[in-house]
């Protein structure tokens, strides 16, 4: 591998990592602030992708579709919180997993009824449908560069929002002590509902902007959920900063694992075992820091 290839591969890894961050941040936000393990998070990602596909068909405009999709996802989040999630705050994790697993089944069936089981593809919006020539025979899709920029902007907004706004303050207060925050006159139920809807929107938004490069298919939610959990666990449950660092780590390791050739004592480590690399990383980190890189000890 020459320097140019390594550089491009690093770019691939970072881009993949940023996308993972976007999905995982919603998951870690909901867990960190509300204490709810939401395994239906992947379903929202899938719903987002299917929404993008539908809206592109109905509206024909990617950007308008994106906006409508986020609004729909936000409302869906509010409704779900009202119907199911708010009863889970003082329940143990097993019950949370059971309820959200139920949601996976419901959404998977609804998806089958509404959209069918086919594979679909979403066209890249004309504005971003180009490639930049990097080497003599490799081009880099502009859409992927745009995707990375969007992820970075959202990460910054999220960080600023939580650290420097009044809402962010309420959120952090609620996270530290729910009862005390209530006593101070803050409607914590409303804050939680907002957070959950935000998490759902983040997942759906990720699904929507990934749709043009990942195609739209029934099992996509499950795939992304597993990697997101790896990211969240490595970064530390509930830590946005951790999710960012872990997502980039996972993205880079996954990328280089696939293309590196490494034999140790005649045993084919890469690429033979590349599929395991991110899980090996997770095991390694949990061995030394069971709470994750930026996780707090409980």
């Amino acid at each position, binding site marked *: *591998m*020459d320097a140019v*290839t390594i550089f*491009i*591969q690093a770019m*691939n*890894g970072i*881009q*993949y990592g940023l996308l993972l961050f976007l999905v995982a941040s919603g998951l870690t936000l909901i867990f960190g602030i509300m204490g709810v393990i939401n395994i239906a998070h992947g379903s929202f990602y899938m719903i987002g992708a299917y929404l993008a596909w539908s809206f592109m068909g109905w509206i024909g405009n990617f950007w308008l579709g994106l906006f409508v999709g986020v609004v729909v996802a936000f409302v869906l989040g509010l409704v779900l919180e009202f119907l199911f999630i708010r009863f889970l705050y003082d329940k143990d994790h097993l019950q949370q997993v059971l309820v959200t697993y*139920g949601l*996976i*089944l419901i959404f*998977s*069936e609804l998806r*089958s009824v509404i959209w069918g*089981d*086919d*594979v*679909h*593809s979403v*066209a890249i919006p004309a504005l971003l449908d180009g*490639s930049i*020539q990097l*080497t003599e*025979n*490799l*081009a*880099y*899709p502009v*859409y*992927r560069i745009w995707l990375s920029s969007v992820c970075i902007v959202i990460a910054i907004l999220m960080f600023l929002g939580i650290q420097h706004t009044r809402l962010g303050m309420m959120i952090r207060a609620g996270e530290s002590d729910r009862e005390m925050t209530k006593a101070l006159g803050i409607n914590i139920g409303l804050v939680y509902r907002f957070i959950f809807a935000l998490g759902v929107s983040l997942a759906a938004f990720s699904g929507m902007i990934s749709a043009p*490069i*990942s*195609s739209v*298919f*029934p*099992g*996509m939610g*499950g*795939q992304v*959920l597993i990697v997101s959990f790896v990211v969240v666990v490595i970064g530390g449950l509930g830590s946005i900063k951790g999710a960012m660092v872990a997502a980039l780590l996972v993205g880079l390791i*996954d*990328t*280089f694992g*696939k*293309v590196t050739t490494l034999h140790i004592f005649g045993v084919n480590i890469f*690429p*033979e075992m*590349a*599929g395991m690399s991110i899980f090996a990383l997770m095991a390694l980190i949990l061995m030394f820091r069971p709470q994750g890189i930026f996780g707090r000890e409980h």
Partner: protein
Amino acid sequence: MSISNRRQFLAGTSALAGLSFLSLAGCGKTTDSIRVGFMLPYTGTYAKLGMAIENGFKLALRELGDNPFGKSIEFFTVDDESNPSKATDNANKIMTRDNVDVVIGTVHSGVAMGMIKVAQETGSLVIIPNAGANAATGTMCAPNVFRTSFSNWQPTHPLGRIMVEDGHKKSVFITWKYGAGEEALASFREGFEAAGGEVIKELFVPFPNVEFQAILTEVAALKPDAVACFFAGGGAVKFVKDYAAAGLKSSIPLYGSGFLTEGVLDAQGDAAEGITTTLHYADGLQNPKNLAFREAYRLAYSEEADVYAVQGYDAGLLLIKALQETSGDLSKKAQAINAMEGAKIDSPRGPWTMSRAHNPIQNFYTVKVNNGVNSVVGTAWEGLEDPAVGCDL
């Protein structure tokens, strides 16, 4: 992750209801009906394939009329969910509880292997309408197990020869890291090297991951003459689109087993233009049998037939041979097996026969994507037979 608990419960209760109904109504009537069991995926990623197979199969059986040999045909279904861990249970349900004469199943190779193990104990007749695991008609082959689709060894074997003929001697092979992908790779390598080609690198993506950017960067750096690959379904759509978006399409031609473009061409759009694949069927085959089949399928189900429907249809044709030989009494197992072994199937894919290991000896076609259609440009291999390594039949 599979859809299980609720569905399992529902399936369980309905099965219970069905069982009690059968024991009342079915008493003493068993010889008056031909009992056909479908063990196919009706939910999950492969649901569509399961349905196409069942549709194709039933279309073939229409040839027999309503009461063939004075009997009625009873259908039993089990949704195997493409879940290998439930394969043994599901196979037992349909073979032992429903006591069917023949089982049509299934799509997923892992499930098929579980099913075959059960069939070896029960001795039930099995016709596999899709699952490609080499072992099914190799190390695990059995007198009562037949296949009407392909072995994983078959579709990528002729590919190497085509590529060398096109002047590509150095190639990279890309696939998912799982059973079918590795079997496809092994057979590609065999065929390609025999034709004088060299596989300079094998690249894998964990199944069913679809993040290909790293792999594509590596391909650009390696600069092979051509790329060969094995992908299907959603992964095939994404791979083909990413390959084009990375700008590789114009400089390094893409080849693959036919599943790369089969049934997903619409979703791939322009990115698929010019891809060359090899498969035992193509929509555009111009033989009279195929034209008639496609017309009949369209009329019956208001949709276009695909390779899975053809495999199901041929499973039906194969069963008809057995029924004709035994006058509809499949309990004469030796006779039924004999008829199926000697069967010459006049299929929409062209005529084929059974190998000693019960896998089709069939033509493989060279298919090129041209203006959004899989068009046949030639026959890549006449009468290709799986080597059936480890089968003593």
